[in-house]
């Protein structure tokens, strides 16, 4: 009996088409144009879509915030000390902006929580290397 661990492929395909219809109108929103390089990028991406789906803001608000963040970076782009290009940093900035706009978030609240996350050791209980198999299923014959 299966525990139903795996998602249904057709359902995922449908969900994907809905998300792609949403991002197609964003700068750099054509499928495949902005590949994910880091796990946080895909997380930030998904959060923006989830918060929108939950009715927290209009998609056009997010779109304008994203355009604005990119525009600001382009204007400061000649400064050698300026941040290097990262599409999903703009994405994150846009998400923070629209959430602050609807009163859900303040920068100080987020800064404070970020400090807490950084102060918590990752996988605190799981630091040691396990050098032997954790389980072995011997041959049956």
């Amino acid at each position, binding site marked *: 009996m*299966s525990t139903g661990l795996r998602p249904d492929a057709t359902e995922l395909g449908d969900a994907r088409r809905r998300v792609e219809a949403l991002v197609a109108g964003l700068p750099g929103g054509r499928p495949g144009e902005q590949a994910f390089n880091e796990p*946080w990028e895909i997380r930030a991406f998904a*959060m923006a879509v989830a918060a929108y789906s939950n009715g927290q803001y209009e998609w056009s608000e997010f779109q304008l915030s994203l355009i604005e963040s990119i525009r600001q970076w382009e204007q400061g782009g000649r400064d050698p000390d300026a941040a290097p290009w990262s599409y999903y940093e703009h994405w*994150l900035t846009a998400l923070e902006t629209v959430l602050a706009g609807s009163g859900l*978030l303040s920068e100080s609240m987020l800064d404070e929580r970020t400090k807490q996350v950084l102060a918590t050791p990752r*996988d605190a209980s799981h630091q040691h290397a396990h050098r032997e198999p954790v389980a072995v299923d011997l041959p049956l014959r």
Partner: protein
Amino acid sequence: MSEQVRSQEEIAARVKALESILIEKGVMTTAAVDRLVEIYENEVGPQLGAKVVARAWTDPAFKQRLLADATEACKEFGISGLQGEDMVVVENTADVHNVIVCTLCSCYPWPVLGLPPNWYKEPAYRAQIVKAPRKVLREDFGYDVPDSVEVRVWDSSSEMRYWVLPTPPEGTEGLSEDELAHLVTRDSMIGVGPAASPVS
């Protein structure tokens, strides 16, 4: 917008912090975000692991280096990104089949395999694959490991992350490294499935 340049670690922490705040405020659930991530999880990385496997299938000297020190060998492909954690590749043979898990959380060799699939993080998989590996492979993944083959389960931690070098499928003689890489699935590198067979 903040003007200072943030490290990847700081940004990742900020995203995590944001998610926890939004969940507390009832704006979204972890499950909703996971569902969306699931759509794209295949797009970060697994093709890198596939390239490494295809090279190991065609170049015995590289395979030796990979099995001896996967972290170093992967640098030949420009793969890094792990912060001081070691990667270990375990090889499937005619006698031994390997499968990976993180029993405590979701440690995963993401620079080569991308983001972990959701089921990899589920308590069900983490517990059951250790208790009855052969049974879980058959019942949840439809993957029948022959009775004569030993199944070994490797527990990744934040210090050491395992992944699997699958056996090459039959009928791949004469295929290029590129063509071989297309047969290497994510599941085969987790150890919950075989590499795909070439379409004749």
